[in-house]
């Protein structure tokens, strides 16, 4: 197991990604994801030219 060293300043908060901060309804590769875009349901990420 790799040991990880963090900046030693204040308290540290780790966030999980999938189903905590984001949801992967899209099954493609992460490199396909472009920039966030606002929709009527909040912010979504856009996959190339296709909104998901």
């Amino acid at each position, binding site marked *: 197991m*790799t040991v990880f060293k*963090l*900046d030693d300043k*204040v308290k*540290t*908060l780790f966030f*999980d990604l999938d189903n905590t901060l984001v*949801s992967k309804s899209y099954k493609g590769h992460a490199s396909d994801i472009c920039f966030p875009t606002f929709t009527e349901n909040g912010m979504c*990420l856009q*996959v190339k030219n296709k909104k998901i």
Partner: protein
Amino acid sequence: MSLRPFALEALSVLTKYYEIYIFTSATKEYANRVMDILDPEKRIFNGALHRSHCCKTKKGFYIKDLRIVNNKNLNEMLIVDNLSHSFAFQIDNGIPILPWYDDPNDCELKYLTKYLVKISKEKDIREANKMHLKLGELVKKTMQEIINFS
């Protein structure tokens, strides 16, 4: 892929109180790509821990063992995860959150932010979690029920 409601607002507030890292059981490439999207100006995240930093059980579960961090004490680290087994080795450092899939009315991150701000000044963050979340007691109770049942 979608961003959970209040995610950016929550992260933006919490950067004032914590150093924030991603800790995912996904690959390094995925973690970095999503982090770049969520935080293109690198103002929120200080870095990412990923699959190679997790312990994998025989049954294929990934555990996020905070002892991997060698210059921080466990009393000053928290992990927010929808999978409670992720912080099984340090249950009092964990904050469970309901999994989010696509509900646009989800407010969990909004509520969680209030709690995280409230406990940010605690000397031992685990004591605050013990008092408010009582996950250790829940584990003991569940274990006792399993023992009684068998």
